């Protein structure tokens, strides 16, 4: 019984991880991690600013979607 709950729990957290990565929830964390390791002195933007800049970049550089 405990093993089953653990398995469901593990499956749930894997699913959560997958969705966060696939849809992009985790983008900000990744960016912060990148800044910390590559440019430790650079200021870290807050999440709101990060997403604004992210969409502004897409405005400047549109990418194609397929048919």
């Amino acid at each position, binding site marked *: 019984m405990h093993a089953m709950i653990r398995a469901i729990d593990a499956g749930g957290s894997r699913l959560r991880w997958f969705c966060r990565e696939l849809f992009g929830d985790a983008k900000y964390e990744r960016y912060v991690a990148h800044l910390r390791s590559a440019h430790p002195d650079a200021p870290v933007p807050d999440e709101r600013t990060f997403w*604004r800049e992210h969409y502004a970049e897409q*405005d400047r550089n549109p990418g194609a979607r397929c*048919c």
Partner: protein
Amino acid sequence: MSQHRTGESGGPIPDEDAGLPPVALTDAERAEDDGRRRGLKIAIWIAVGLLGAVGWTMLALARGETVNAIWFVFAGVCTYLIGYRFYSKFIEWKIARPDDRRATPAEYRANGSDYVVTDRRVLYGHHFAAIAGAGPLVGPILAAQWGFLPGTIWIIVGVIVAGAVQDYLVLYFSMRRGGRSLGQMARDQLGRIGGTAAILATLVIMVIIVAILALVVVNALAESPWGVFSVGLTIPIALFMGVYLRYLRPGRITEVSIIGFVLLMAAIISGGWVAETEWGAALFTLDKTTLAWCIIIYGFIAAVLPVWLLLAPRDYLSTFMKIGVILLLAAAVILVMPNVEAPALSQFAFTDTAPVVTGSIFPFLFVTIACGALSGFHALISSGTTPKLVQKERQTRVIGYGGMLMESFVALMALVAAVTLDQGIYYAMNGSAAATGGTVQGAVDFVMGLGIAGVDVTAQQLTDVAAAVGEESIVSRTGGAPTLALGLANIMKDLIGGTAMMGFWYHFAIMFEALFILTAVDAGTRVARFMLQDSIGNVVPKFADNSWRPGVWITTAIMVAAWGSILIMGVTDPLGGINTLFPLFGIANQLLAAIALAVVMAIVAAQKNFRYLWVVIVPLALTAVVTITASMYKIFSPNPAIGYWANHFAFRDALAAGETSHGTAEGVEAMSAVVRNTAIQGALSILFVTLAIIVIVTAVVAVLRSRRSPEAVDTSDPPVPSRTYAPAGIFATVNERRLERRWAEEQPDALRARGH
């Protein structure tokens, strides 16, 4: 003792960092993995081969008895598995020659935004969501007119030898070049003329593809208050999601997607209620021309609005729906196991009289089913976007080749939806309004007049089906989307809800197709505008500045006018629109594939890898022959039903002779419209084929030059040693898992795609 291939860049890779665990398996370790449980693996592959063979046999040889749709799943999936395991590995071994000791652009150019090391399983989902849209859902529906077998063979065999090869190699070579775009690679490999022709062709093709996708939506929503209401509601839903993400909870994308999905379902259900009310029917019943103008205006506004407000939330919804719909469709076919109603090969296979898309199987089947078997558009995603996210070189095989196999499966399921429909209903829905007159009795006469053995339809049947799905009429609902929707509703009703739920499932299908297409219209307009800005920017530098709003508005208006005029031409075409225009869509998409494959061929030849160049030549020759032949038919065929110019002159002569009706066009005005439309369609055909021939010829010249040149030319970026590790496939092998664990233990903070 391990032997690594150095791949296309001959230079040695600098020594690995002494402090790190290995960043790649050695050849010996991979061979050890391959050899593990050899007997069991051989047995499994024999079983897969046998099951696939049974599937194919049932599809190909069953005559006179009903065929079950489950065999499509077996034939398809088993063939995909074999193609992936053996052919894609062969291509990896002989052409790509990846080297995991080299860092990918995601690693050596990491910037936290567009160059990001991404987990392979996540990237597979990403890439699939970016390549798959409405295309693979529409083409197979129209191609069902030739019978189920030709389409099935082309979808499955085509993807193995052509579509997936293109996607994989474009992704791989772009990754080796820092994620360079197809246009840039064309310029590098083919020189200025070939490169310019490739970029111009991409722009024109983008316009025609957006126009015809928009035509599919117009045809699906015309005279359908339910559809117009629920698809219309997606706009406020997307706006709400955009505002939610920007001001309320930035970054909570999964959360807002779930909210959006629930609202979407509510929109579908409430659409049924609204359509039943008098005011709802009066307000939301729109004709084709009005709808076309709505989409044109929408297209302009959407493309100049900021991404966060409309495009990004729509994208999230699309991704959510795409994955859900594919799982649903596959599960439904497997659980319901519907019977196939269409013949293996219809009587239209080798004639010019086919009613849905004019022309015989060769070449027109191969251009009608573009997405799902070979889609040039994917080359734009496989270069530029995805290659900047790949973690390890070896993963390109599962993402590029494997991603395309999934799209092929979607196309196969769409074909199943069409061929499990009653054939009388199929033809009543897909006969052009010019042929059926748009009336139930006209449709009955049209279907009976086709003279197909065993196919009949009654007026009662047609009105009953229309009532079941909550539509005024299902006669001449061309374009593929309504037929797919009915086919899906027909299968799903046996799984959930019965006949009472058919209206919901029908409008659910219309909804997701419209969602995919409106996203593609928005994004396609933006990309086309961007390319135009770039081109005009060479002459008037101010236009290249993306933040100069008047420049953005002017170029957007030009691109919207370009596809909008083709759309208006399609909806007002006296000959029916989709059946004359759809071949242009397929031809355009396949010509883009020819261009992409020509660039790949030039790259492989430059490496002096002539021995295995056939892997690229085969699909290139196939698509070149198909599209150039199809273009020639469209340009030169003396049969007015096929040749644009033949039709053009037939109508001009009729007008000159003072006739007031010709064929299905009544009145001088309609006849003049045909004269104008055929001239535009004919001119576009000439433009496409000329550009594609220029690109192919410059690629062949590049190959011949490489043959003569004494040494291999390498246009890839110089190698940088990798400092990360991840397995190649979706599932890790024993040695891969061992190495992964070692990384986790020794380098817990190393650059990794997975969070903690």
